[in-house]
């Protein structure tokens, strides 16, 4: 059971050059894989391709193979894929259904669409709202919330689907540190329950916390792929447009001043 991309390339319709080249990616169950990279390195494109939205609804041309739980999904229509893979967009405005008048209905929208029993829809919706501590927003109009609140609502909508595969494109971009922590905890819990999760993020602190494996994209290619702690401690990360996690930066600053980073001891943990 996993999501596997082999030799995947992708070119947007009308684009002069491909946005992804020769990407191999294995996303086993119960695992969080992080994707880092500079702006326009291909992170969002990889999310669209891995979730099947590109080329199905975005157009463009794809090569290589994508296998979901061992099956080639090439001929699958979007609605069939959408039952198995959830995707969270960078801009929560894109995610909201625009037809729900309350946050509760918004979060219940996905489970309703797949025809779950009423009681289960209600239970899952409250649970998702509770996990992200937004039960007090249940009666609010989702279109009239702050950007950060909308992002939490969009994420709650994904959680309510209890997806076995989830692709998240900068799920915490608009969140405050507390919101970021709640989403990190939700991602970790979902993975512990067996889901495979791909998270594209600029916030390497978040990747250091939730991802076991991290890959770095540059110009549409995978240029680093390995255990999170190794990849995120790579000294060349800055040259790839990726800010190292706080702990790594602090140790580098101490080292650059000619001090032994051992003076920091375990003080940089957590």
């Amino acid at each position, binding site marked *: 059971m996993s999501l596997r991309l082999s030799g995947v390339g992708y070119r947007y319709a009308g684009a002069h050059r491909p946005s992804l080249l020769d990407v191999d990616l294995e996303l086993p169950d119960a695992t969080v894989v992080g994707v880092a990279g*500079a702006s326009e390195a291909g992170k969002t494109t990889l999310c669209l391709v891995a979730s099947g939205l590109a080329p199905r609804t975005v157009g463009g041309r794809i090569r290589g193979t994508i296998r979901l739980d061992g099956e080639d999904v090439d001929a699958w229509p979007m609605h069939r894929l959408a039952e198995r893979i959830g995707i969270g967009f960078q*801009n929560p405005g894109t995610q909201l259904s625009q037809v729900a008048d309350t946050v509760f209905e918004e979060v219940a929208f996905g489970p309703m669409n797949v025809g779950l029993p009423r009681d289960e829809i209600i239970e899952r919706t409250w649970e998702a709202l509770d996990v992200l501590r937004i039960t007090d927003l249940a009666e609010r109009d989702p279109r009239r919330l702050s950007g950060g*609140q909308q992002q939490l609502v969009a994420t709650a909508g994904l959680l309510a689907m209890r997806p076995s595969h989830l692709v998240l494109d900068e799920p915490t971009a608009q969140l*405050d540190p507390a919101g970021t922590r709640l989403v990190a905890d939700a991602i970790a819990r979902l993975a512990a329950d067996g889901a495979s999760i791909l998270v594209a993020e600029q916030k390497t602190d978040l990747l250091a916390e939730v991802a076991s494996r991290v890959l770095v994209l540059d110009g549409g290619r995978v240029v680093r792929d390995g255990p999170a702690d190794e990849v995120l401690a790579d000294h060349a990360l800055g040259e790839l447009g990726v800010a190292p996690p706080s702990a790594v930066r602090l140790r580098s600053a101490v080292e650059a001043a000619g*001090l032994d980073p051992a003076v920091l001891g375990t003080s940089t943990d957590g």
Partner: protein
Amino acid sequence: MAELAVTGLVHVYREGAVRALDGVDLRIGTGERVALIGQNGSGKTTLVRHMNGLLRPTEGRVTIDGVDATTMTVAQLAARVGLVFQDPDRQVFSGTVRAEVEFGPRNLGRRGAELAAAVDAAIEAVGLAGEERTNPYDLGQSRRKLLALASVLAMRTPVLVLDEPTTGQDARGVDRVRAVVTSASDEGRTVIAISHDMRFVAEAFERVVVMRGGRVVLDGSPAEVFAAGNRETLSSTFLEPPLAATVGDRLGLGSTPTEASVVSALLARDSTGQAGATR
């Protein structure tokens, strides 16, 4: 160039009884670099929207150089306070990068060489040189956001207000935004930025204002605000200090909100012998 004073500011949005601002008092001097932090929904965006007249106070007032903002025309305010939205797609509308950046200063009456210089400098500052003829919607979201910043920079307003300027920016983008903040303030312009990025806040700003439930709960330098004594107040606003501050605290280095300050505190401790280390 411009002093901003907020007095007893209250704002109640019509749809509910939510007091988005519940009595804010704040005085910001010329050339200050002020970061505004607080959890989602604490009133930060509502506060800055009073500074350029997008919102009018329910109670209290905002003055710019002593003049009540509500008595100024849109044009007068636009010449004094430039506001960059969190979402660039709310403000970008021209067909090319250059036209987009020209729009603001042109509306303020700039023409010819003066206009060209302001536009060139702004495009250069955000790293979009060479993209002048590109359609803004052919830029990615993060560069479109830098474009929105350039279009407000080019107006050379004495006050610059940035709502979440580093969101979605990669390492280079954050460095650019930081350079823009520093150089604007070196030129004597006042910079106010809303941010959730505590490392950016500690490194680029000299003053940090913390909001909770529509009020100001802390106001001081990064070293003061992120000091160990404020940990409880910070966590009541669901904020965490930058890692450097926590580390300095654990190592007994005092308040060290930035990586650089951790390093200098460690060096100072070394130079005074090991006395400090055993404390």
